[in-house]
């Protein structure tokens, strides 16, 4: 075999796969068409555009920089790929007081505003696709959800229910400082602050908490994306 044939062989064997699994899907996904909602099936018109509120770009950066993706995923797999959907609060809420069962799998429009979808490496901790929803409705029902998240960041084991958690404490995301004048509005209600000092979150912590609260990927999806139309019909009532 000549050198030329050899290099051609290397390039062909690699190049075909490269085109098929990288280049073409990259271009296809990049030009993902917006989904037109139809009056008949979705009950409304316009385009499907899941809104997210919060400091998504900032918070996603903090999430990446501190390696949250190593232990938390952000994907609710369809039932053919895993049992994520059956968990009562991962894909949404099993019994939302207003909307009924909101659980659904992750779709390609859920990562709007992020450069890199933090699908995640392992699940040492739970999936976060609907963390915002879960904190508001379950963990901190009736309380300030951001305080629950700040507490979790400061030390996950402060919550008696999570005493076995192996999530690292992030004390560096908080500053302990002397109170001068009026106490800060951001001061944390925990962290055994001494008399005359207060514990305040850094801008990074605030961005991260805002991002985590924006994780509510359980909106109703258009009929073309819906994997369980029966459920949608049932909850539409």
């Amino acid at each position, binding site marked *: 075999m000549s050198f030329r044939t050899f290099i051609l062989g290397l390039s062909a064997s690699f190049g075909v796969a490269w085109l098929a*699994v990288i280049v073409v899907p990259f271009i296809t996904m990049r030009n993902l068409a917006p989904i037109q909602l139809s009056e008949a099936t979705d009950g409304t018109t316009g385009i499907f555009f899941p809104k997210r509120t919060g400091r998504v770009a900032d918070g996603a950066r903090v999430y990446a920089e501190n390696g949250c993706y190593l232990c938390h995923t952000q994907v609710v*797999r369809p039932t053919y790929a895993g049992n994520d959907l059956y968990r009562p609060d991962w894909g949404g809420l099993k019994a939302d007081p207003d909307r009924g069962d909101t659980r659904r799998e992750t779709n390609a429009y859920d990562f709007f505003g*992020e450069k890199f979808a933090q699908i995640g490496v392992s699940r*040492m901790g739970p999936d976060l696709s609907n963390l915002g929803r879960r904190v508001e409705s379950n963990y901190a029902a009736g309380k300030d959800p951001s305080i629950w998240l700040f507490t979790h960041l400061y030390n996950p084991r402060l919550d008696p229910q999570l005493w076995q958690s192996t999530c690292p404490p992030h004390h*560096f995301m908080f500053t302990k400082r002397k109170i001068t004048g009026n106490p800060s509005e951001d001061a944390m209600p925990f962290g055994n602050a001494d008399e005359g000092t207060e514990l305040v979150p850094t801008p990074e912590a605030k961005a991260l908490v805002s991002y985590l609260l924006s994780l509510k990927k359980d909106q109703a999806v258009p009929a073309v994306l819906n994997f369980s139309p029966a459920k949608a019909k049932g909850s539409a009532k």
Partner: protein
Amino acid sequence: MSSAISTTTEQDALLRAGIDRSLRHPVMFFLTSGAAWLAVSIVLGIISSAKAHAPGFLSCCSWLTYGRVFPAHINAFIYGWGFQAAFAVIIWMMARLSRKECTAAGLILVAGHVWNLGVFLGLVGILSGSSTGMPWMEFPAFAWPVLLASYFAIVIWSFIQFRVRPEGHVYISQWYLLAAIVWFPWIFITANTLLHCLPGHPVMAAGINAWYKSALTFLFFTPVALGTAYYLAPKITGQPVYSYSLAKLGFWSLAVIAPWAGMQKLAGAPIPYFLPYVGAAATVMLFVPTISAAINLLRTAISSPEILASSPSLRFTLAGIGGLILLACSAVVLNLPDSTLPLTQFSLSGYGFEILALYGFFSFVMFGAVYFIVPRVTRREWLSRRLIKIHFLFSVYGIMAVALFAIFGGFEQGIGQEDWQQPWQNAASRAYPYAVGTTIAWCFILFSNIFFFIHLALMWLRLGRRSQHPTLFDAAHGHASSPHGEEGDIDNAGPGYISAH
């Protein structure tokens, strides 16, 4: 007639000695700094592994948080140790096999320093909180052009050497090395431009990242290690390669199958459905190239059991082939869609599989190469049989423990994860004991590699034994069965040795 033969042998020896001399500093630089990064990576690995079950450990400051130490650990391992070991082996083996002295040692050394600087700054970036958050690509975006440029400056000479070599047979190792040299920049440029420069869909970006991890493992580290093993096994035993057709099958099946693998990590994520399935199928099919190479190498090596017992290089290489067989089996077992893939997709098994590939297979073959190459380029023999033994035993037991704990722990964890009727904590509790075991095993590996690093550094300082007798495991066999040739006929000594003293 006999005088003609002795002239060729002498010329050969002269040529080999010349090649070794021309590459002494680059090779030793890559190996020593690689070993230093390996030690750094293992320390970081112990810290992060301990944090996985004792979250309060060293939680004082931001740069020691788990989410930064773990990426630092894996990136130091890949770019600090893995690549530099590969560079040393590529430039040395390609020069030997192409029978050309290296004329660019200075430039390679400079590029090697730039590479190290890039790795250092990248790690500082990760630890100080500028990680990109993409697994195996966590170095801040400034690092990749630096690494790419120095990569070209290091390996381009090996490519040229191959092109200008005297006409003749192209050996299996050269196929693998050329392939690795060509594939790596293609993979690296693709992943980095698509993730850093051309904005695409975020989920596809995650898919490309998963593909990058797999491609780096199977299209760079694997061919480099297989090329090295195909060099060492026949060279040390003095036997021809068992089967050339099997070698061809192994090579071309790797080339055809491996580029498709990787995206099974995104099974169930919103990317085109065929991608995870193609990835899973390709990863399972990697059994073919890996097992055909492993069988071929084992058949070659076991043809001379007494050399196997005495040669440290061969012992390490074969341990690496053992790791390859385990890797091939776990590639099949871990990636079956609808049965094991949902369990292992987001569990410790992924880490176990990576460590098995990078350490259990690649690094062991690299250690084998180090024990073979260093005496030749420094013209000194290894100081101590015992140090090599410690390195071997602690590494083998340590790495097998890490890989098996992580893979089986991952299965346990995955079963807990899929059991949706139980609370989530159940899955974490199932993984806990395996995480503790992994930390302990890493400590053994650290212990072994500290000795390796000291031994290697002493060799670089040319404090090795001035002897013509290689350091072997089994002293009782004497030197008659030396794997490096007849007594007094060691490449290491070279023809100028006696006259020089």
